[in-house]
């Protein structure tokens, strides 16, 4: 599924801090133009509060753009739909359901017959390496396992696009790396289009075919950096290769000014 952002702008109405009735407009995103090809893995990086999550909400159909359009295979987004699956940073698992039950939750929404659900859920839990944990409740699983369940749930109902909102931010470094590898292998096997949000530069370079760097307030796309790291199947440490370092530095330089500007803006906002 191809995704096209056409001059997308998103404004929010915010109440004045002093408690007066007066409300002001706040521009979260402005002039977003972005094209994502079918089956592509695109990463969005930007300083905190740059509107990354807003962008994903727009794509997920949870909010509507103030102006501009978002097209999925040429059709404008009008609301949420099961052609897009969202993976949240906080997992969003139903705590009263087992791992299996959580994966089936997505299948129930798409109307998969009851008999097929169990088999399908097991298949996708197996895909994320959770065979043997089907009957565990979320509180009996580690953070990494919970996120695997959430990914399995999103994959199971077969959306064409996977929207991932800092899915690995709450995990420890080792778990994060292994989940990154697994996500890449799942992506390669399933051929989904992936839009991945992160504030980690290493994660962006490691995962993305292209990395879109965003500016802070209002969020704009500053530059799109194509990443080519050669063969990913090479067993040596990809993160220490010179290409990786070059890309990393390029994105770091692009982000550096933005982070400084974002901090300045925050200070000004706090001083008011």
């Amino acid at each position, binding site marked *: 599924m191809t995704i096209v952002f056409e001059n997308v702008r998103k404004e929010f109405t915010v109440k004045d801090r002093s408690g007066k009735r007066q409300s002001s407009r706040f521009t979260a995103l402005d002039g977003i133009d972005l094209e994502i090809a079918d089956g592509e893995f695109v990463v969005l990086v930007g300083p905190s509060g740059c509107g990354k999550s807003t962008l994903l909400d727009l794509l997920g159909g949870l909010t509507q753009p103030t102006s501009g359009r978002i097209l999925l295979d040429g059709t404008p987004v009008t609301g949420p739909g*099961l052609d897009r699956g969202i993976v949240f940073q906080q997992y969003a698992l139903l*705590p009263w359901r087992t791992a299996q039950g959580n994966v089936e939750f997505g299948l129930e929404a798409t109307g998969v017959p009851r008999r097929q659900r169990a088999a399908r859920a097991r298949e996708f839990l197996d895909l994320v390496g959770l065979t043997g944990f089907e009957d565990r409740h979320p509180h009996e699983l580690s953070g990494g396992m919970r996120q695997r369940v959430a990914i399995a749930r999103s994959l199971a109902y077969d959306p064409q696009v996977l929207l991932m909102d800092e899915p690995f931010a709450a995990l420890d470094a080792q778990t994060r790396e292994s989940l990154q590898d697994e996500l890449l292998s799942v992506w390669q096997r399933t051929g989904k289009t992936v839009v991945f949000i992160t504030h980690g530069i290493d994660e962006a370079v490691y995962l993305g075919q292209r990395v879109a760097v965003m500016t802070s307030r209002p969020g704009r796309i500053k530059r799109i950096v194509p990443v080519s790291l050669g063969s990913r199947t090479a067993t040596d440490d990809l993160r220490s290769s010179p290409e990786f370092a070059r890309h990393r530095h390029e994105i770091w330089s692009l982000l550096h000014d933005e982070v400084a500007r974002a901090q300045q803006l925050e200070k000004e906002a706090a001083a008011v």
Partner: protein
Amino acid sequence: MSTTTTETPAEAVREALVVKAPEPTPVSTGRARRAGRLLLTVVTKSAAIAALLLLWESAPRLGLVDRTFLPPFSEVAEAWWGLAEDGQLADNTQASLVRSFSGFGIAVAVAVPLGLLIGWYRPVADLLGPLLEVFRNTAALALLPVFVLLLGIGETSKISIVVYACTWPILLNTISAVRNVDPTLLKLARSMDLSAPRLFQKVILPASVPVMFTGIRLAGAVSILVLVAAEMIGAKAGLGYLINASQYNFAIPQMYAGIITISAIGVAFNQLLVSVERRLSSWRVPTGA
């Protein structure tokens, strides 16, 4: 391990057992130690009650209190047995339980859906909030004369007062349960384009069960409390009536027998609700207790 179905009651129970199971001990000393621990638990949990009964038995006998007004426990137990044998106890208990349970049941049936509605639709909450606040803070028993005036002294007024008193804890807890459903779960449901009935059935209702049940348990206690008071005012049967009538007829041991029965019913009902609650919210992260 069976993987054919999920979330059967049996599994919920097993989950509860898995969570609560004590850490394994070596086989050789394990059994003896476990038996010892169990004995210790039983002793600890019954010590205070045993002490109370001992005091109750000995204080009148030693002349510390007037035994006409506080007969020794053994006499009360004897009176209880007498009441149980001639069927008075069963009749009165039945009368009370029917009223209590019908009132409680109606309150659950009304307050849970109403609470879900008020909790979910903010305009409804804004509209009804102040009214709820007024009613909640009006003691149910203060309204008993009103109920009697409007509905007479028959069963209707008694069941109504129980319904009224039970409604508030359930309603308020249900409202707060719905309000506090994890927003990321709601966002998830929205991203999956769930219909409103599905959203309620699959997300809001199960997420609200634990907090809702706190209210239901409170209501269980309230149902017996209020009923007994109501029966003391105008009734021809029921445990409240038994206690009151015994006092008038100066059958003091019988009066205490009635009181003990009420305590026992209260404890049993609460235990029942606690075990249902455990079963329904076994998925909750065990927090300390």
